[in-house]
């Protein structure tokens, strides 16, 4: 016999976990519907009917007592699908006597027939149900009472299967699922921890267990998720993304400590939970004659240390953005290039140099120097700009421009500026080539950099 438990329960509760209280042989047919094989449960719960009553009683209990705080429907039947149909359609406890399925299910509207239970594709099932509606078949009984040969002839084996389903005659085994491996660990602290050092003693065993679990399944991870409940009742969350899948708990620990140092929690920690997304480990075959690159885990640690020193935004590889906005780039996480990548890049640069275009090197001043510019007939004539490290001042003896760029007009941070390339002669008669620009909305002048 099979018992189906069906109910709308809150998202944070698991009906499956609840069902494990009654039998280890369960099938979670869909969220909110679970089927239990009740054979062998008699010693624990008595008859199937008693078990069903027990299920409803326990489900109504508060969650602290292992209940669901909800009313569930339970149906007992000789096969899982009849139980499912009965439980989803009828409230309370239903006992479907073997051989009498149609008496119970017969009046159910045909729309409630669930073709997915017999693995019929949705498209075919919809078409079949449409045909049934055209035939005036309104209930399970209408369908079940049609001649099987006629149905088989018209709707094929799918029709026959569905007809048996409507008649409550489908015999099948439960689809039992193994509990999924858990890749998360948490710990509740007796006393809140406010300092980093003691926290490392908490992280260590958690990461150790996590890496052991990954090892057991021959998996690694490229993302660690840390969640800490703080004393001020807030939640601290961090996500550490790794360039390659790893499972070395020592590296994880160092990375996590560096990250926590950079982004310390606002209050003392009351509980810690670490989870990871398991992925396949990286398999890499290095060439015999390829010079050794730093080990990825060590590189990652070094980068994390550097990030701690200079700030996360200021480390990585710059990549140019596809826009006319001057000096638009973003920082990409630094990764080691493979041999083939570097070869490709070398080839490209060789080709470019073969074209023989003469280009001047340009050194950007970061940040640009705010400048005072004297303008004559709309053109810069005299520049003075001072910064902490450098200063530019002198007469403009030669210039070209303006070069105007405007854009991102649909955003708040649109830009509009005129650039000039100017030759500035200083008092020492030394001449240097600079790029200056004027922001058109603020009218402010800047020196952006100099040409080599």
């Amino acid at each position: 016999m099979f018992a189906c438990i069906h109910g709308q329960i809150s998202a944070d509760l698991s009906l499956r976990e609840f069902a494990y209280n009654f039998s280890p042989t369960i099938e979670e047919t869909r969220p909110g519907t679970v089927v239990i094989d009740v054979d062998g449960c008699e010693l624990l719960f008595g008859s199937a009917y008693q078990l069903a009553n027990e299920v409803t009683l326990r489900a109504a209990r508060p969650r602290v007592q292992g209940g669901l705080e909800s009313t569930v429907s339970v149906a007992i039947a000789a096969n899982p699908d009849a139980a499912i149909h009965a439980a989803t359609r009828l409230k309370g406890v239903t006992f479907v006597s073997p051989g009498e399925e149609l008496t119970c299910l017969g009046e159910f509207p045909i729309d409630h027939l669930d073709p997915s239970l017999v693995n019929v594709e949705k498209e075919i099932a919809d078409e079949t149900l449409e045909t049934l509606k055209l035939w005036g078949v309104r209930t399970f009984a209408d369908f079940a009472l049609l001649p099987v040969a006629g149905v088989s002839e018209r709707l094929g084996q799918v029709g026959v299967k569905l007809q048996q389903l409507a008649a409550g005659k489908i015999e099948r085994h439960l689809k039992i699922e193994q509990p999924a491996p858990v890749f998360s660990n948490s710990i509740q602290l007796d006393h809140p921890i406010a300092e980093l050092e003691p926290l490392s003693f908490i992280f260590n065993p958690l990461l150790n267990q996590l890496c052991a679990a990954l090892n057991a399944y021959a998996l690694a991870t490229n993302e660690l998720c840390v969640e800490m409940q703080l004393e001020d009742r807030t939640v601290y969350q961090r996500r550490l993304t790794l360039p390659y899948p790893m499972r070395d708990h020592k590296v994880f620990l160092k990375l996590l400590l560096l990250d926590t140092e950079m982004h310390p929690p606002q209050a003392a920690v009351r509980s810690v939970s670490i989870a990871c997304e398991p992925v396949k480990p990286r398999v890499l075959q290095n060439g015999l004659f390829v010079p050794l690159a730093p080990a990825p885990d060590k590189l990652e640690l070094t980068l994390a240390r550097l990030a701690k020193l200079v700030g996360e935004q200021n480390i990585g590889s710059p990549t140019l953005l596809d826009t006319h906005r001057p000096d638009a780039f973003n920082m990409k996480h630094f990764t080691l290039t493979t041999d083939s990548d570097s070869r490709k890049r070398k080839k490209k640069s060789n080709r470019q140099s073969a074209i023989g275009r003469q280009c001047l090197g340009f050194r950007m001043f970061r940040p640009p120097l705010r400048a005072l510019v004297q303008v004559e007939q709309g053109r810069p004539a005299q520049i003075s700009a001072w910064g902490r490290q450098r200063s530019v001042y002198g007469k403009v003896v030669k210039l070209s421009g303006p070069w105007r760029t405007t854009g991102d007009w649909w955003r708040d941070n649109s830009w509009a500026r005129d650039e000039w390339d100017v030759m500035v002669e200083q008092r020492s008669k030394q001449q240097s080539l600079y790029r200056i620009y004027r922001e058109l909305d603020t009218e402010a002048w800047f020196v952006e950099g100099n040409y080599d």
Partner: protein
Amino acid sequence: MSYVELHARSAFSFLEGASVPEELIAAALQLQMPAMALLDRDGVYGAPRFHLSAKKNDLKAHLGAEITVQFHNSQFAIPQFQCAIPVLVKNRQGYQNLCRLITLMKMRVPKHAKPGECVVSAEELAAHAAGLICLTGSFDGPVATVLNQRDPDNEKKAQKILEWLIELFGKKNVYAELQRHFDREEEARNHLVIELARRNHLPLLATNGVCYAMSVRREVADVFTCIRNHVRLETAGRLLAQNSERYLKSAATMQKLFADLPEAIANTVELSSRLKFTLEDLGYEFPKYPVPHGETMTSYLRKLTEEGARSRYTGKRGMPTYERARPQIERELKLIEKLKLEGYFLIVWDIVRFCREAGILVQGRGSAANSAVCYSLGITAVDPIGMDLLFERFLSEERGEWPDIDLDLPSGDQREKAIQYVYSRYGKLGAAMTANVITYRGRSAAREVGKALDFDEETLSRLASLVHTWEWKDPNDSSERQFRDAGLDLHQPRIRKFFQLYQLVQDLPRHLGQHSGGMVICQGQLDSIVPLEPAAMPGRVVVQWDKEDCADLGLIKVDLLGLGMMAVLEDSIKLIRDSYGEEVDLAHLPPNDQGVYEALQKADTIGMFQVESRAQMSCLPRLRPACFYDIVVQVAIIRPGPIVGNMVHPYLKRRQGREPVIYAHKALEPILKRTLGVPLFQEQLLRMAMDCAGFTGGEAEELRRAFGFKRSEARMKAIEVKLRQGLTRKGITGKTQEEIVLAISSFALYGFPESHAASFALLAYASAYLKCNYLTAFTAAMLNNQPMGFYQPFTLIKDAQRHGLRVLPIDITCSDWLCTIEKEGEVPVLRLGLRYVKGLSQQSGQAIVRARAVRDFAGIDDLRNRVPELRKDEMRKLAAVGALNFIQAAAGPTIKGRKAKTHRRDALWQVERVTRAAGELYEELLEQDGNSPLQQMSLTERIDADFRGTGLTIGKHPVAYHRPELNKLKALRAIDIHKLRNGTFVRVAGWVIARQRPGTAKGFMFMTLEDETGVSNIIVTPDLFNQYRLELVGHSFLLIEGALQNQDNVISVKASHVQPLSLVTATAPSHDFH
């Protein structure tokens, strides 16, 4: 120093320009530019508007285009590349070459060719270079394209390409183009171009590569770039413009930009002076009609006219005699000869002759009906002399425009035959359809702009839904309110930006469509007058200009318009001939059929042409047409002109004798006598100007046009002064003068020509006559030509049934694809055709009819075997609507000597079996008899299946089945409310068959409810509409409460409460007019 912009794109470069030609000209005018050139991409789409706008503002409009040229690998030793070569038209030969070149490019690829497919080769350009001046182009020009190649020899290759251009166009006709948009790369390229120009002794030419009139339109240009490249603004990157410099710049700005190269500016003026061609010099000639030996076009037209006039003006049945008609015909012929329009009349006559010979019903409409020559030639069916119509409305010497003859043809294949005849007669390059420029409007604008701004699908749908679909626009319905109602905050920058852009893109060209019927014909090659391109429809060619452009440039056109009612009349005549054995001649219908006028007076006009709308129906019982001219008035009176001009009520009151017939001035009496002193027609307006202000016919027509749709303040003022002077001269002053001026100025905008109304009234009378006398044939023809008219097939059938027509169901053993007429004894009955089975393809339907013609079907198996085209779903649909019941009955078992009763479910049960092959193994095992275990469909199920499967039901009206429930709700039947007194509070219920919210009705909504006894009219006030918007718009069945209005037997209910009803599950959709 002056400057002329010689390289500008308009929005007619389709997504590569952001200003319409008029905007460019307005900007040029503001900048005091003496001339300007328009070079759109691969076309001269915007040329007429550019030319006319320039002409109006005394600017010189130069023309040209950017031609996409593809070079082969072997040329210039560069891999295959494409570039845009800007060319300017120097003379007429150049213009003709340009048009031919573009035609060549467009005609060899399909309408929706991918970018890059629509190109010309270097050789083709070479063959068409004469008369053109070439510029070296901007960033996508030939020189820049070569210089941009990453090649150390690119300068040498650029030199080669320049040499090739010089060889092609001649040294004097190549200009080294320089543009300065504050761009480093562009300037570097300019240095190379200057060097090349000096080396080759080429003149420099400054242009700004204009893409929009004002810099603010750069945003639109960027949005267009996104639409063109299928990207969002956020992801478009460097596809977008670097800055907003491609606007039309003043001479001073350009001089400043090219201060180091003053000759580049000076050369623009010099080049402008060399460009002699304008569209005035188009060289268009209307084709000459090939006349028989010994005849000239003039003599032949005279001969044909005389022959026609003698046969039409017989003096019989109230017609004028030939002698009476002759002076008018002579006057018209003289004018036609003077204007050299004989060829045009002969060509139109030829099309009409072809249609007659091919059995295609044809009738001229519009102002052509004012011409006795057109009537004599058989082009029109209304006698202008008998009806005293004004010829000047059609043709006048002063106007300097071609006359406009529109021909109504049956829509569908018959019209296509006429169009293909014109193509075959004048050649593929001698005739073409006029274009229809599709512009960004409403939803399309909202969607495309929203997409560019990266709005999600849900927001896009909300933004698109903001665009109002009703004709009436509430003045309080501000954009802010609409946006707020849709949950969008206009204070949010992105939404605000959307709103601005949405407004900016309004009316900008989106793509080129095909006009429904306008054809341009040319003597010789039309492709040398205007570029031609293929239409989306196979076998059709369109010109790059729309109907208005063609008219403005004097290209004569013939409108071959498809009219559903013409097809209905044609089909009716055939059905009457085949089924009744009678011949109906539309030209000789009994003029005063009593039944017709009775039906019109009762507003029993469902299905009748032009008089079936809700507004017409509410007017008919007041106007009570009693003669043909009353129908002419009826057709014309329910129009925006008379409604806006408050002419309807005075006319009706005077007609009913409730108001005296008075005239503002005695001079108006002969003009307005027929319409009881109320001006209703454009011809009356012209006559008023002619008789009261001394205008000539041409001047009067000029007056009408000045106050018409394309009104310009200056033109109106000038002509009003002239009108007042004329009136004063004739002694009409003071209040009377004011009244006349007001009547003319307010009426000219919407007035309806009497000739057009008369042509339509003929069709209205014919349709009414056929409906009243041959209901079966008329209904069958109406049903066979759907969709058309005001009502759904269901309403047409219910109306016909109320008039006593018996309608038989769709039956596979006797239904044809179309609805047919059968005889029950001597009574004709209507058999529904297979075309009404939704989802049944015409191919399958006709295959059924073909197979049945061989021998009857022995059963569903036989049907399946003999009509392999029938798909499973089609068979199911046939069974569900009961079309297979009869085949079952014929083939099924007999019980006590009678055929066993069959029903739809039996058929469905069998269909499922025959459509699934069992295989040989099971053939013997499986059941063979037709008995099914399924229950018969209930009544409700049958109605439901009927509506779902055919959109109609021939049984009782769905509302009839719910009458007991409606009685409990105290809802009256439509027929019952006719007996009640004005002001009685009533409840009516029914199926909504039409909803209307016309622009002239100040926010009122009009609904028509249908029940088993007829229709009831509902009036919804604007306030009530706002209160019950969802119920009124979203529900099929409604219960309406309100006060009954009975004015002169026009019955309506002024709704005060609305309640949706859920009666049956499926219905046909209502016909909503927005």
